[in-house]
């Protein structure tokens, strides 16, 4: 499902991961947390701050998850326990990972709620998730993820379920916290505009593979892969209204083991016999700009 994906994120930087549903964005993130569902298996290496996490024993993962690598999910209502007040949920993370006593953990939880901009955090800590709005819930999920100051934060569509004014608040919060805490962020979204605003570097995934990688500025001003170009052209833009929007014909293919050639060839207007026969490698075409396309070579 995900095939040969490689990337690095520096401390304090944000990597945007974009692509349509089913392209492998979320599965890649789950691999980082050792959460890939059976019977799938993971090969390759995952290295965080010099420590190789690939192939570690299943029993060791709980020490990594939540402490070194944390995750924020799309739907805050399902990410939170409905039967537990939010202060205790954050306290539990600190109790487990930092061996704080429950009293101390609850006090720290209030501090964490203050950090994510929740007003009157001491009272809110006693609230249950259903008593909070969607935006407040997502702040709680972020507070929980960041409680142990992880090295890496994975945010999987963190603002997709939120209204646009709340989305703006959450994006600003994430940037402020990144400046303060300095974690690396992997920001997964199908919303190109959100990614263009928040990411330093972007990878575009298609059918389980990385097809393009560049700085956010470069990727959105000079996209080289026909898929990336297509994704950008299909978006209605307030700054530049077009009577007719571009379309990418067809759908993401269901891949079996013996697929030949470029996975995008079936939907690509530039595809020829070379594309259908040979898999394009991800190669550097310009400094810090990589693309996997036979037709994008200089």
């Amino acid at each position, binding site marked *: 499902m995900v095939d040969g994906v490689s990337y690095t994120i520096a401390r304090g930087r944000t990597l945007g991961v974009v692509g*349509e*549903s089913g392209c492998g964005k979320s599965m890649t993130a789950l691999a980082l947390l050792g959460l890939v569902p059976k019977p799938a298996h993971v090969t390759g290496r995952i290295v965080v701050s010099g420590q190789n996490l690939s192939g570690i024993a299943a029993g060791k993962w709980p020490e990594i998850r939540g402490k070194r690598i944390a995750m924020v999910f799309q739907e805050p209502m399902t990410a939170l326990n409905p039967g537990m007040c939010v202060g205790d949920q954050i306290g539990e993370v600190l109790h487990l990972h930092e061996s704080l006593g429950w009293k101390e953990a609850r006090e720290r939880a209030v501090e964490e709620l203050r950090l994510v901009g929740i007003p009157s955090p001491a009272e809110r800590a006693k609230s249950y998730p259903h008593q909070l*709005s969607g*935006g*407040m819930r997502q702040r709680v999920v972020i507070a929980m993820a960041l409680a142990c100051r992880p090295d890496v934060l994975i945010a999987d569509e963190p603002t997709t379920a939120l*209204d*646009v*004014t*709340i*989305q*703006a*608040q959450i*994006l*600003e919060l994430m*940037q402020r916290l990144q400046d303060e805490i300095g974690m690396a962020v992997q920001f997964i979204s*199908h*919303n*190109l*505009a*959100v990614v*263009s*605003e*928040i990411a330093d570097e972007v990878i575009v995934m298609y059918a389980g593979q990385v097809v393009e990688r560049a700085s*956010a*500025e470069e990727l*959105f*001003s000079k996209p080289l892969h026909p898929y990336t170009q*297509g*994704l*950008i052209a*299909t*978006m*209605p*833009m*307030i*700054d530049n*209204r*077009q*009577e*007719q*929007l*571009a*379309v*990418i014909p067809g*759908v993401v293919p269901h891949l079996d083991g013996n697929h030949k050639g470029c996975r995008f060839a079936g939907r690509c207007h530039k595809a020829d016999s070379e594309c259908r026969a040979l898999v394009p490698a991800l190669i550097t075409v310009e400094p810090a700009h990589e693309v996997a396309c036979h037709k994008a070579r200089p």
Partner: protein
Amino acid sequence: MTALLSVKDLTISFPVGRVNLFTGHRRAIHAVQDVSFDIASGETLALVGESGCGKTTAGRAIAGLYKAPKGAISFRGQDILDLPRASRRTVRRAIQMIFQDPFSSLDPRMTVSEILSDPLKVNGIGNAQEIRERVQDLIGQVGLPADTLNRHPHEFSGGQRQRIAIARALAPEPQIVVADEPLSALDVSVQSQVLNLLGALKRQRGLSYLFISHDLAAVHHIADRVAVMYLGRLVEIAGRDALFAAPRHPYTQGLLAAVPRIGHRRRRRSLIEGDLPGPLAIPSGCGFHPRCPLAKDICRRERPELKSHAGDRAHLAACHFAGEAL
């Protein structure tokens, strides 16, 4: 242009909680309050706002899905809330609806052909032969192959299902289509296809749309005029270009500033603080005042009227300070 559809002081309330023992009344949530607008023939009016603002409720009321809302909805000058049963159906034919989620709006046990012929049979349009031809014509118009007709909804992707839902809405030859978030369940690359299809159908058939959406980029693409709702009331209505270039209400200004755009890195985007208040605790005066950066005393006391402020007579805003820069 004369109005094809005219909505006047539309108010929709839902009773909540128990009957009060002393008064015999129940409390009510006003989901939509005193909303008025017109839609001209061939025009697209977009209704925008955050979740819970009442835009979907207003759209459903116009499509006839609620009993007896207050106010008036007239189609070609005829009040459609106050019609005898017999003539209701003929008017209702003219207003059809497309729903947000094409996975729940199509009956999984019906074939596409049955889904499309149902509205024709219900309205008594044509005999069996005519219905068959009409259905084949419809499926072609939304860009699906004819063999689609014998298949069931589960065999299709989200975008294809939404095309089927559009074909169903078009079957009784409506003049107005209420499209409630028709894109939000679809993948990005499919959204543009559906937007293009809606645009093409409008041009070919002279359709009017009430396009309900929270996606302001899509609204900018498709709408001729835009109405902004907040806590059940209209706070601003204007032509598309006027609204996007010079929004007068601070809520509209905040909404537009919050829209993510390609190439605007790390700018200040949240002008609006806090959350939407609950529907049972609507603030006094201007409903937006607790979140408004411009709010003064008068905003807490008096509700501003929706009116035109300067120059553009078609640009209405409900703000005591409409036109002041945020």
